[in-house]
């Protein structure tokens, strides 16, 4: 995707500097993780509204992160662990 680095999809009249694809892609995880400040977030969001190259990639990464997050640290049972811990607790001084 690096070949799209200098391509800016949004050449309109606004005086605000627009992100290139390379700049947007460099922020993909910070954007999806909610780690950008408001103006940086808005910059990426606006790039994605216009850019048909980056949007699908961001969407893919979002699905990936959602999947990992939903997987979570699932509950797991360990036979005998509860009994072992009860014994340890019972042996604690009052």
């Amino acid at each position, binding site marked *: *995707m690096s070949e799209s680095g200098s391509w800016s999809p949004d050449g309109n009249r606004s005086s605000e500097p627009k992100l290139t694809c390379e700049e947007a892609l460099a922020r993909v*995880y*910070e954007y999806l*993780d909610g*780690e950008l400040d408001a103006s940086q977030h808005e910059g990426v969001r606006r790039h994605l509204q216009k850019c048909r190259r980056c949007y*699908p*990639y961001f*969407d*893919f990464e979002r*699905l*990936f*992160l*959602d*999947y*990992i*997050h939903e*997987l*979570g*640290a*699932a*509950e*797991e*049972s*360990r036979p005998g*662990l*509860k009994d*072992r*811990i*009860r014994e*340890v*607790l*019972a042996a*604690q001084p*009052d």
Partner: protein
Amino acid sequence: MSIPAEQKRREFEGEALVHLDALYGLALRLSGGDAPRAEDLVQESVLKAYRAWDRFEAGTNCRAWLMTILRNTFINEFRRQKSRPSPVDFDEVSERPSSEGLYEADPEGRIFDHIIDDKVVAAIDELPAEFRVAVVLSDLEGLSYQEVADLMDIPVGTVKSRLFRARKRLQERLYEYAVEMGYVK
């Protein structure tokens, strides 16, 4: 006045030990699937919680309180050990061209509806510890970069780069798995 020992034990068992499976699940992921280590971690954390039970505010989120104790217990040990060099050189990961393989093969991410969770859990467990812990804290537990950085005692920039490389590594493993099961070519 402290509560009688028997009452304390009853209360603790009723409110805290019901979360044992959640604690063990987190311990297992943090320790990379090492069951005996995870078991020790849970026991140590539960014991700490029991000793601090007088300070737990009834009615607040007991599960979250216990998970925090377990995270901190793990991290203290992890930070003690971190001066040891990682046995795996992970620098190659970000350089490997296949890191975009999954996106190119399956841009709509349909694999995420089909993959078996155990395969992904195994891929997380296989990550070198520094990367695995960052992924577990951030992606599974939902902590911010700053929270992960504070816990792991590393700069926020290092958290970012570890997450980036770990996530690309996980995508590589998913890609390999997708090829194996004939889902993509």
